[in-house]
């Protein structure tokens, strides 16, 4: 298996090169540049031109590209044109926010989805199942942004239970104060996000249980007189969790990429929001760095998923 992992890692290199080249060129093709927002009667266009030249924006694209790649190897992702801090520090800041929000969301998603899926599968076609299915159709059919905005309006403004934007209150002080404030800012978007995100997991789990219930090995177990509870938990449930495990790798790496929609609605300064902002502000350095990171995360996520699958399901072996 180690050989396989190594091979997969090696294949990633050309993939990443192509990705970085595409990303870089597409970013450059967007109209405008980081300085176009600075032109007004109080800046001298000559000074802006001088700054553009100093930033190397007039060099041929391949010169810019190789300069960028060269810096990458030194661990230097450049300096943000807009925020004027190193991109690494900017991303570290945002990744930290996104990580905790995503972790909370993921925990909430699973702790809602797994019991629901089990209930539905176990009580197939009974009222419990119908209830879960209705919930599932609603969450499937509701567009995220509508749901978040509605939630924000109801619980954030009308009832005033939760903060409406940001990741921490300006007045929070002390370790516990800050921690509490962060959690308070996170919990609401996380709940909303989790509610919408359960759909897939519930459905996979339910279908898995329903399918496995009628498998031969289950009938064998039952006929041997194994107690129903053991049959369910040891045989049916384990096998039904496989499809969910298949996504685990991407879920783990997804903890860092964040969600553009929820972060925008709640003005939560995470990776998704940073990505959107860097596009609208033509912050090339941040933009290219982010896409590269997202690309790497996706590739690693897929690899992780495969590895996890091969560990928990002996039938699957990576060749």
């Amino acid at each position, binding site marked *: 298996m180690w050989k396989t992992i190594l091979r997969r890692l090696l294949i990633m290199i050309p993939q990443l090169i192509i990705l970085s080249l595409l990303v870089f060129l597409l970013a450059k093709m967007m*109209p405008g540049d980081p300085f176009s927002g600075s*032109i*007004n009667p*109080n800046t001298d266009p000559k*000074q802006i031109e001088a700054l553009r030249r100093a930033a190397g924006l007039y060099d041929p694209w391949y010169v810019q590209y190789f300069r960028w790649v060269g810096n990458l190897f030194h661990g230097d992702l450049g300096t943000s044109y807009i925020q004027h*801090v190193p991109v690494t520090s900017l991303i570290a800041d945002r990744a930290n926010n996104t990580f905790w929000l995503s972790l909370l969301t993921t925990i909430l998603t699973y702790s809602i989805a797994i019991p629901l899926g089990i209930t539905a599968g176990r009580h197939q076609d009974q009222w419990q199942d119908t209830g879960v299915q209705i919930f599932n159709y609603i969450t499937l059919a509701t567009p995220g942004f509508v749901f978040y905005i509605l939630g924000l*309006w109801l619980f954030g403004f009308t009832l005033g239970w939760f903060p*409406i934007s940001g990741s921490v209150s300006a007045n929070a002080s002390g370790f516990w104060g800050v921690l509490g404030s962060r959690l308070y800012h996170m919990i609401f978007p996380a709940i909303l996000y989790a509610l919408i995100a359960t759909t897939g997991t519930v459905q996979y789990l339910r279908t898995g249980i329903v399918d496995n219930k009628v498998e031969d090995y289950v009938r064998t177990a039952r006929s041997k007189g194994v107690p129903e509870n053991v049959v369910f938990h040891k045989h049916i449930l384990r096998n039904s969790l496989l499809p969910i495990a298949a996504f685990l790798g991407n879920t783990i790496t997804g903890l860092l990429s964040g969600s553009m929609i929820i972060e925008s609605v709640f003005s939560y300064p995470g990776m998704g929001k940073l990505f959107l902002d860097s596009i609208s502000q033509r912050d090339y350095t941040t933009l290219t760095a982010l896409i590269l990171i997202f690309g790497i995360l996706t590739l690693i996520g897929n690899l992780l998923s495969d590895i996890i699958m091969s560990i928990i399901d002996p039938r699957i072996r990576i060749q």
Partner: protein
Amino acid sequence: MKKAKVFAGITLLSGVALTLAACGKSGSNANEASNAAKFSQAVPTKATKNGGTVKVAVETDTPFTGIFNDELSTSNTDSEVMQYGAESLFGTDDHYVFNNKGAATIKIDQKAKTATINIKKGVKWSDGKQVTAKDYEYAYEIIANKDSKSQRYTASLADLVGLKEYHEGKASTISGLEMPDGENGRKVVLHFKNMKPGMNTSGNGYIWEAAAPYHYLKDVKFKDLMSSDKIRKRPLFFGPYKLQKLVRGQSTTWVPNEYYYKGKPKITKITASVINPNSVAQSIKSNKFDVIQVINSQWPNVKNTKGVNFIATVPLSYSYLGFKVGKWDAKKGENVMNPKSKMNNKALRQAIGYGMNVNQVAKRYSYGLSFRIPTLIPKQFGDYFDKDVKGYSYNIKKGNEILDKAGYKKKGTYRVQPNGKPLTIHLAAMSGNANQEPIIQNYIQQWKKEGLNVKLTGGRLIEFNSFYDKVQNDDPSVDMFMGAWSLSSEPSPNDLYSQTAPMNYSRFVTKKNTQLLDEMDSQKAFNHQYRIDKFHEWQKYMDDEAYVLPVSNSYTITAVNKKLTGYSLKPSDSMGNGFPNWYNVAYTK
């Protein structure tokens, strides 16, 4: 530091277009215009008490950058976030002319070609150190030193003797900046190459209006300043409040600067936190903030909110319709007019002006918060504004007459050019909120009534970046364009409309225009009446030639907690930075 406010530049460019495009449902708000005029510029004055926390909303959909330094900051949001501490050196009257009520005095001597600046004794940084002559020089050094990558260096600032040499690295000091009492003194004499009549006005672009704490920043290299913690996390200010806490991109918390030269301010704590513009209306209605700016399109939603005073100003800005009549010659650095271009016909431009029903559009889509403006010099400039210029009010009949007379004959629905060729006019307009589209379509319908075939460049509204890409580069697909300018508080229009101004996007150049613009900023114009006359003459000329048609402007409304007093938007009440003087703001007893 009017500049900071003005710096909104392009943000406002789209912003102004948007405010006009405010979303309206019906034309039933005919009386709103008169209501709007009733806004006060300040909240009522009442007896005050010490203490209390003030929450201020910073409306932006991107986190603020947080460069807490006037010389390096590039964003309007940053100026907004640091307004509590970043006081300008000079106070002004209501027409932005320097007076001596600020932290320093300034005296302009036309004959000696100098400006003498005296920083008042007791004006101290928030660490207790006196603001010195060196601090003022240092601000110039930050701007002009290439390593610091400041965007603020301009040809106008380089009117200061020696600044250019310093900028180019040919000199280690700025020869024209003299400190008669030494670096630790409080007196600075600036020597200029040419004197300008606008130099007595804030935002003139020739005299820098802020200082930077040299003793605090001197150990930081110029190239590291912009990202240094001393500017990004722990800045010093000499204004009434000092930064206590910063949550990067999200919020700033301010507490009184005990060394403030006017005395200790009364509010215990001010927090300014970012809020998404989409949440503004709800935040006003639920009184989540003590000071929050109204988004005009949401006005009907919020105007009945209890517990707040709505105050308003008309910002120094306008939206306009420009006609492309030439090209920018980058080599020569000047605009070159093409006399044969399609839009180079006065009658055509005037008729287009008569075809715009700006008043109706403003009424219908902005609850009367936007209004037509007649001339390119805003009313806020007082005497400089020519009230006799009426502009082009909606008059289709007159438009048709002018076009008939000028030889634009009708062939079917549309007119053809005097030379017989078909006439299609391509209009570039920026996309904004949902109402931008119906507004532009409305204008196009009106022009059709004059037999003018106006089509949108590219067939649709254009995204902000692409719009300026096309307009700045004189793209042939643009015959006319709807833009907006946010202005400096010094009224001279030279930067926008002169032969050498790259931002003269129409590219019109006429002898008369050049002459008038030169005269306005000439030595003779130190005579106030002479300057006013030239301003009026120019406005009349521009009105007649119609190379650029002024369109509209809108109120900026702020909702202020009724329990707060001292909050005023008058320029004379400002700390010279375009924001209210927070020293005066306090809770009522």
